[in-house]
Every structure is written in structure tokens, then in C-alpha cells.
């Protein structure tokens, strides 16, 4: 639909896909400092969906919204490199330690201030795997939500969404405003665009600018400013944020050490592949 405003929810996460031996701390929490910080993979799928809508319809804008420490501004730059129009970094000490409830409270307030027609997020983040934030944002906004999306387009005023479910595909339609969460099976996000990278590589938040010693920035290179919002900007109640706003308490963490791996060697012969497929079907690993 022409002229709509989209907000993409994106999170900077530790890359838990290639974990080394020191990826976990002794207390069982993720050691964020040793893992590279990346754009949460399914949020990239979400961004791609937003960019496709922007390409397909006129006057659509895409704003990235991320909550995190100052360095999460990198997520906004990554979004700009791929075609987002702008971005907002929600950052404040008061947000630290937020669980999904507190996070979605803050995000919902920020979305409210941005007043978009459509919010698109990834299904879940690889550091928590809860898949709760998108749906909770929808609840707090009082908007309908569609999860597991894979493809979407407008028919008139309605968004038609294909959902990837465990045993098949479902197509639904929904009115705006709406929150959609996107599955990892959706098309991969496009690569960075050369011109946009050159244009936005010096985009900075105010806090980053103050911390930066680079001459470039001093020379006024940072022509693009990334918006930074704290607690006040979204009018949040500090009690509902951070640790105090997070009812989730980690009771116990168990280290699961896999004792033995059951492994089987297969060749690429047709016979081997066929017997594997049959076995997987029989024990319902697939199908």
C-alpha cells in the first residue's frame, strides 16, 4: 500500500551460531564480550520484507528500531546500508537487564511515538530464543499480530501474509495497523548497497560522536545523525523497565554436557541417502 510507514524491530545479538569454548561464563550466562555482535538473523529477514514493500509501493518509509547499548547503533547503520530510511536507537541505563516484558514495554512506547502503520520483526533472537517480544509489543499496542510470516503483499488495504507452519503453509489477511514477525525461512536479506555504505558509514548517534576520537568525525564527516532515545523520550515509567520491570528470574542454570554422540557414517550413494530418508520419516524427524 502506498505511503505507509514501517518500523522494523531489530536486535544486536552475540553470534551464538559459532560458539567456542569460552562462549559461556561459569555462571551459565552468555559471555557477550567474546562473541561477535551481529544483526539478529531473523530480523534481517524482517528487514528484507520491509524493503520489498518499500520497493513495491510508493512513498513507503522504513525505520529501524533497536534497543541496546550504544554500540547497537551498528544495527541501524547495517539497516541504512541495505535501504532503510532511518533508525532509532533506544538506549538508556534504565533499560539494562530488561526481560522480554520490559523490553516490549519500551519498544511499544517507542513504536507508539513513531506511529507507523506496520511493525515487522524477526520471529525470535538467537540469544534468547523466546519469540515473545514481537507478540508482546502487539499486545501492548493493542494491535493484531501475525507470526511466522514468510511473504507478504497488499491487496487493497489488507496485508496478505503467507505463514510457515509446522505442517504446511497458511495464508491470512490482516488490516493495518499490524505487527508481523518473520520466519527464518523467508528470503534472505539483500547485501549492503555500495553507495549507501559510502553514504552512511559515518552515521553516528550523539553519544557515539562524543566518544569518538576520529578526525573524520571532527572534520564534520558525520553528516547523518542516528536518533537516540532514552527513557524520557518515550515517556516510560522506570519501574517497568530494567530489572525492576522484569519478572523473569533465572532460577537455575544447568550445564548440559552431551556424553556421547550417536553418529553414523553415510556415503553419498543413492542407497545410503534413501535409507537415511526412510529412517528420518519413520521416526518422524521429518514429515
Amino acid at each position, binding site marked *: 500500500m502506498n505511503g505507509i510507514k514501517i518500523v522494523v524491530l531489530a536486535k544486536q545479538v552475540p553470534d551464538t551460531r559459532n560458539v567456542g569454548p569460552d562462549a559461556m561464563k561459569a555462571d551459565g550466562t552468555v559471555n557477550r564480550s567474546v562473541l561477535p555482535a551481529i544483526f539478529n538473523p531473523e530480523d534481517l529477514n524482517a528487514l528484507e520484507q520491509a524493503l520489498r514493500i518499500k520497493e513495491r509501493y510508493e512513498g513507503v518509509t522504513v525505520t529501524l528500531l533497536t534497543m541496546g547499548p550504544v554500540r547497537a547503533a551498528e544495527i541501524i547503520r547495517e539497516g541504512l546500508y541495505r535501504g532503510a530510511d532511518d533508525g532509532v536507537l533506544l538506549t538508556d541505563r534504565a533499560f539494562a537487564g530488561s526481560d522480554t516484558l520490559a523490553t516490549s514495554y519500551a519498544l511499544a512506547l517507542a513504536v507508539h511515538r513513531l506511529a507507523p502503520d506496520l511493525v515487522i520483526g524477526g520471529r525470535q533472537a538467537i540469544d534468547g530464543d523466546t519469540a515473545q517480544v514481537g507478540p508482546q509489543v502487539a499486545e501492548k499496542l493493542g494491535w493484531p499480530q501475525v507470526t511466522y510470516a514468510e511473504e507478504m503483499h497488499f491487496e487493497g488495504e489488507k496485508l496478505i501474509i503467507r505463514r510457515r507452519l509446522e505442517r504446511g503453509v497458511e495464508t491470512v489477511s490482516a488490516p493495518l495497523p499490524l505487527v508481523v514477525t518473520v520466519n527464518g525461512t523467508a528470503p534472505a536479506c*539483500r*547485501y549492503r*548497497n*555500495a*553507495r*549507501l555504505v559510502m*553514504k552512511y*558509514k559515518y552515521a553516528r548517534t550523539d553519544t557515539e560522536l562524543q566518544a569518538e576520537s576520529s578526525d573524520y568525525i571532527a572534520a564534520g*564527516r558525520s*553528516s547523518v545523525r542516528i536518533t537516540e532515545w532514552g527513557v524520557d523520550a518515550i515517556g516510560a515509567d522506570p519501574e517497568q523497565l530494567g530489572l525492576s520491570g522484569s519478572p523473569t528470574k533465572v532460577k537455575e542454570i544447568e550445564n548440559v554436557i552431551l556424553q556421547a554422540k550417536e553418529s553414523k557414517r553415510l556415503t553419498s550413494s543413492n542407497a545410503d541417502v534413501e535409507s537415511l530418508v526412510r529412517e528420518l520419516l519413520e521416526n518422524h524427524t521429518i514429515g
Partner: protein
Amino acid sequence: MANFYTDNKDLRFHLKHPAMEKIVRLKEMDYREREKYDYAPHDFEDAMDNYDRVLEIIGAICAEVIAPNAEDVDHEGPTVADGHVTYARGTRENHEALTRAGVIGMNFPRQYDGLNFPMVPYVMAAELVSRADAGFANIWGLQDCGETILEFATDEIRQEFLPRFNKGATAAMDLTEPDAGSDLQAVQLKAHYDESGGTWLLNGVKRFITNGDAEISLVLARSEEGTSDGRGLSLFVYDRADGGVIVRRIENKMGIKGSPTCELVFRNAPAKLVGERRMGLIKYVMSLMNGARLGVGAQSVGIAQAAYEEARKYASERKQFGKTIDQFPAVYEMLTLMRVRLEAMRSLLYETARYVDTYKAWSFIAAERPLTKEEREDLKNNTRLADIYTPMVKLISSEWCNRIAYDAVQIHGGAGFIKDFPVERLYRDARITSIYEGTSQLQVVAAIRGVTTGGYLAQIREYEKKELRPELDHLKKELVSLAGDYEMRVAQVVSAGNNELTDFHARRLVEMAANIVMGYLLLHDAQRDAGYTSSAELFISFAVSENRVRSEYIGSFEEKALGLYKVS
């Protein structure tokens, strides 16, 4: 995340060559566009950072999209129906990813929606794409046609065609005909000016045209009735949207199967004249081919890199007689020589690209203001060097690419002959590099001038002057002695005053010069980064023995022996 740019440290090393400071300053004309375009660099560091970031995008696309598609593209290939070509699915996907990344038309000026990058990063991109899929590298590389439009066409034509590249338009260069291959002076395709329509019309047949169904084609045609040589030929630009050309068939080839090689029929196809009449072959096509030859140089380095990696991996995994095969001298010698050749040809490739960059940048500046005497000298010198280095790099890297692919298959043993391993495709893809854009024999014809006029020797003497660390001295001595030997053999051949004898020894002499040049380039690499010292050492000892064979052959060759070789 796999990335063909960041996984090979040699690339950043060549990108960051000290000569880049000057090249970038000239190319960016003192960074004057920084206020006009929000993506133009502010200074040297900023520009280099841009090249690095953009090559990283291309490296990712190569590793994650193009390389994984290569096998399917090789099997599926393009198809032709109703006179037009449809690419294989993977080819379309590759092209779309690069188009979206906004990297096509990389070295065109910003006013034509280019990125205004120098040749060095552009050639590097071609190397990366070639490593991923040599056939697709042609479709990527034909953006060179835009460079010819930029240099020689009117501003109106530039405005019409150049901005289309960045949006994904592809191009073709239509030179070869059934009876005009190496000898392009024999081109027959007819161009006549149609007064009533106010346009040139093309009629005739072209053969072996890569990507012949492109949106934009540069066509060499005979515009002057009654002529029969190169001076009757002009260059035209044809827009597929205007119609008039059909693809009669596409060739069934040994390699680079994803790249459609077309036979084209022109029937009153309207076209626009590029530059002046009669200058088509002697000026514009020469320039076009020089660009394309550098492209084939990059393609060769890319294929060789891919083949080397396959061989290295296989040799470290395959066990025979109780150990991995890379532990046998016969195998590790092959592997190491593959790597050293690869490094040498890559150094030659980027050295050439820097000469091209420098002379092109000066020519653009010269279009705006008169050059000073020193600047003119620098322009002339770099033009001359680009002219003699281009056929050298095309010759050496395409031949060595074939050699490396051959050895890579050998290291795979029987598995190398089986289609399950990528090395089989690389071997087939490699074969074209020493044939198109002028065969190796024709590169020698072009390069021999650098031998007989002393061009290579003069540059070798320049290299000699460079101060090196003392521990590299013994290597330099070897090269100085090779240069002396080369000089003597050139004098011997030339002084005989027999052109046929010169032609007979031409390739040997060009190869001798090339070995010395590459020896120096590796030595300079070692000077800049001690990590390259062992490569320099290995290469120079290899060059000594290679040159000795040639030198002795020439030395003991009697002119009358030519007769023994003649075929009646």
C-alpha cells in the same frame, strides 16, 4: 560468513600499494566531488576505506551466491528461443545480487551513476567474481564496454547508455565474424547511413559473441564502402530495445558454459556512431580490447586461485601409502609452484592495473586543463607501460592459469577427471583464457614491441634502482644478471635483421622479460612485507632456470634451422 575478499590477505596487500595515494588523488581530482555527492570520498583514507568496504560486499556475494551457483549454471547453461537468450537461473540470481548491491559501473564517473573507482579495485572485483564463476565473470566484465563509451562517445550517448549499467544493463562487444577472428581488419558487417531515417543501419553476421543478446552492444562494422582494411571500420553502439538483431544460435562449449556465446544476425539494426568514422578498429577497439585483456588477466588469476585452493584442500585430505599426498615431494612441489606462480601473476596484474589507472586519470584531467610538462611525461610513460604490460599479463596469466588448473586436476588423480569435483569445471573454464581477447600468439605479437624497442628493459632498469633491505640483495643480483642475459639475447635476435626469426623467438623473449619483471615485483612485495620473501626467493630461482632454458635455446639456434621447422 564466507568472503572471497577477506579470506585472501594478498588482495588487501595489493589494494594498499603505496602508488594508490597518487592514483586515487588523480582519479578523484583532489576529492572535489565530496560536496556534490554524499557518497564521494573526502580524502585518500576515506576513498580506500570505501574500496575496502565495497570489495567486502562483492567478496560476500561471490562466496555466498555466485560460487554456490556455479555448478548448476555449468550444467543448466543459457538457452535461446525466438532469437533471444535466457540465462540460467543462477546467472540471473548472481546478476541481480550484484545489481542490487549497486556495484555495476564501478569505475564510471558519478555523474553517470558510477562509483568512480579506479581500475585496481575494479580489477580486483573481476578476480573475485572469476574465482567464484569464470563464466559469469564475462557478464560482469563486459561493463568494460561502458568505459569505451565514456572515453570516446559524445556526451549525449554517454548520458543515454552509461547510467543504465548501474541499474543492471549488460553489454556485449561484437567484433568477431566467421572470417575475421585474430585478423579483425577483415570485418565485413556493413554499416550504412540511412538518410531518410537519419540513422546508421547495420547488416551482417557476427560470431562467437559473448553475451550477444545484451541490452547494450558495441559493434565493429565497415562503414566505408569499397575499403577492405582496418581503416574502413567504425564502432557503433546498438540498443537492444531498438530491435534488428537476433541470436541465431548459441555455441555448445567446452567451458564457461554459463556465458552465452552467440551467433548474431543484424538486419537493418539501427545504431549510433561512437567517436569518429574510420577510427573504430585502430583506436576504439584497441582501447576496448586492452581493457578486456586486463579483464582476462583478472579472470585467469581468479580461476587459478580457485584451482589452487581445490588442489591444496584435496592434497591435505587424500591419503595414499599411509600419508596425505601433500607429503610427497612431487605433490608439494606442484602445490608450491602453483602458489608462487599465482602470486607472481597477481603482482603483475595489479602493477599493470596501476599503470592503466595512472594514464587514464591523467587523460581525464587533460580533458579539463592543459597538463604541465612533467604531467604530460607521466601520462606518456604510463600509457606506454600499460600498452606493453597488458599483453604481457594476458599472455602469462592465461597460460599459467591453464597450467595451474592442469596441475590441480593432476593432484586430484582420477577424482580430477570426474565431474563430482569442481576442479574438472575449473580446468575446462581455464582453457578459454588463452584464446579469446586475442590468442596467446597474438599477445606475443603485441608484446614483442616492448622487447624490440627496449620498453621492458627500461622499466626493469627502473625497478633495479629501488632500494631494498640488505637480505634481499642476493635476489636482486640474480635479477640483474638475468636482465643482462635478456638484453644480450634480444640484441642477438634483433641484430640478425630477420623478422621471421624475431617472430620465431618472440614468445621466448617476452617470457624472459616477464619472468624478470615478476621477479622484481615479488621482490618489491617482499620489501613491503617480509612475509613475501620466500615467494620472491622461490620465484626468482624458478625464473633463473626458466630463462636459462630460453637463453640457451636462442644462443645455440642457427638461423637456417628455421627451415627445418617450416611446414609445407
